[in-house]
């Protein structure tokens, strides 16, 4: 019975969004402004500490928002979405290390390659539904991880690393880290914009129709395969860009951290925390989860118990606020549905 209730709510929400489409513009600009404002603080203050923290926050936002496109809008739980983060990281790193390609083109190539791969694997894999799809994405991530672990051009299990000299081309490692930060800010803005535009477009409506009832969507003239594959391809681009920047910044890439299944699950958690299928949800979820984790990690009170505490918090949220922070807000204060997408 609960399911029906949520579904009907979601449908109501969509219809609602459709009706008042034009009033929603300010929300997007507000979101963008907030992200930019936050992003400017370290630039103005020059605090590298804040910069590093925001880097992680923005990365969490990117990963959550991109997985939300395939999971929240389309209803396909991609458990191994981190595979695109790793692939992006590896391809960019390979180009930067061996061909001295600059970060920006290297990241773009990596992003396109990851999207291309998503296109290729998406066609067969997106035929699967529900748990089968989720399991398949885990399998893909593990297959790629173990493959890279044996693939010598990518350094195999040893991975690849930069000589400090590499950063000299960017004006030293200090400038390189700033560049990485600008990069992640740009990718974050791009991701949020894409997430917003998709949600508001006819394409997004089609995706949500597929989420509610794939067969009915087909009857309405939507080609589910084309829609799903397109969503999957787009959602693969952003993690790949983030991966390229992240591993550039680290100066080292190894298979285990690049294809870390736990990181994949963390981005699902962020989506759930903020609100499944909304634009603002993954952003809020990413911010809250990342800050909470760091707080627990660095707090002396919780010291080594932080993993368990994160588990307890997550469980309470899943059990009692299953719609996520944004979802719950929208449910409780209907007027907000006008403003928060």
């Amino acid at each position: 019975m609960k399911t029906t209730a949520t579904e009907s709510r979601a449908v109501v929400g969509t219809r609602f969004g459709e009706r008042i489409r034009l009033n929603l513009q300010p929300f997007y600009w507000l979101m963008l402004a907030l992200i930019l404002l936050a992003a400017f603080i370290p630039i103005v203050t020059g605090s590298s500490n804040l910069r590093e923290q925001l880097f992680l926050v923005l990365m969490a936002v990117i990963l959550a928002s991109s997985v939300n496109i395939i999971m929240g809008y389309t209803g396909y739980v991609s458990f191994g979405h981190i595979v695109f983060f790793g692939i992006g990281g590896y391809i960019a790193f390979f180009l930067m290390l061996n061909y001295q390609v600059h970060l920006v083109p290297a990241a773009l190539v990596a992003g396109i390659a990851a999207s291309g791969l998503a296109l290729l694997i998406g066609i067969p894999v997106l035929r699967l539904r529900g748990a089968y799809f989720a399991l398949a994405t885990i399998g893909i991530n593990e297959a790629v991880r173990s493959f890279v672990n044996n693939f010598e051009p990518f350094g195999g299990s040893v991975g690849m690393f930069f000589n400090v000299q590499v950063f000299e081309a960017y004006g030293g490692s200090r400038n390189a880290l700033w560049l990485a930060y600008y990069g992640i800010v740009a990718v974050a803005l791009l991701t949020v914009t894409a997430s917003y535009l998709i949600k508001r477009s006819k394409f997004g409506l089609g995706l949500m129709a597929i989420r509610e009832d794939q067969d009915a969507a087909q009857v309405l003239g939507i080609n589910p395969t084309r829609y799903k594959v397109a969503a999957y391809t787009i959602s693969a681009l952003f993690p790949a860009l983030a991966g390229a920047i992240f591993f550039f910044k680290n100066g080292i890439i190894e298979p285990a951290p690049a294809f870390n299944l736990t990181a994949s699950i963390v981005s699902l958690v962020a989506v759930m925390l903020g609100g499944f299928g909304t634009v603002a949800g993954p952003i809020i979820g990413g911010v809250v989860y990342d800050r909470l984790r760091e707080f627990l990690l660095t707090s002396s009170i919780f010291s080594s118990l932080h993993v368990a505490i994160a588990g307890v918090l997550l469980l309470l949220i899943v059990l009692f606020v299953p719609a996520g922070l944004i979802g719950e807000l929208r449910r409780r204060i209907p007027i907000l549905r006008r403003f928060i997408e």
Partner: protein
Amino acid sequence: MSTLLEIENVQSGYGEVQILWGVTLKMEQGRLTCLVGANGAGKTTLLRTVMGLLPAKQGAVRFDGQNVTKTSPHERARAGMAMVPEGRQLFTDLSVLENLEMGATPNHARAAMKQNLEWTFELFPRLKERTNQIAGTLSGGEQQMLAIARGLMAQPRVLMFDEPSLGLSPLFTLNLFQIIRKLKERGLTMLLVEQNVQMALAISDYAYVMNHGKIEIEGEARKVRELESVRKAYLGA
């Protein structure tokens, strides 16, 4: 004659969509009551609410003098309420015998399973031939028999049928009504929700006519059958 099952001013629905708007209904011990009405009138919703599969937003369901409104379906089943649900809802992966065993879940039914099985097989000799067949592979008519047999295995004090003739061939439908009549002769209290209004009214003692989530007409089945409005709306005359 005493009232066995009493539904009082029940309101219910799915999520935010309300379907029943205050339904009151009584079933007397040992009698066959039927509930008829157009598609979407709320008959199935009523049965689901009576059985507890849907919570009643308002009103009460009393069984044998006990208020069962807040109890779960399985508790109601154990108290002696049984239902042959719409679309049969068999355990399609289980064998015929296992389906019947599952029907006999309430304690009193479990104790009497052997005898009940015997007379059920007497009633449905076809099922006896197919004891170990997987239920999902039975024909439609056989599946309906199994659904009824499974309901009987609970040795219920009241048995509710939800559209039992749906999708059956005319021959099977006839057979079905004969079986219901036999059960009535055995003194089983039954509620029959049917689209085949003609036949339902013909074998029932008492009838309710439902429309738009409310009871519109009630009375002795014989009399209801004579009503002009009923004849027009449901009997095609």
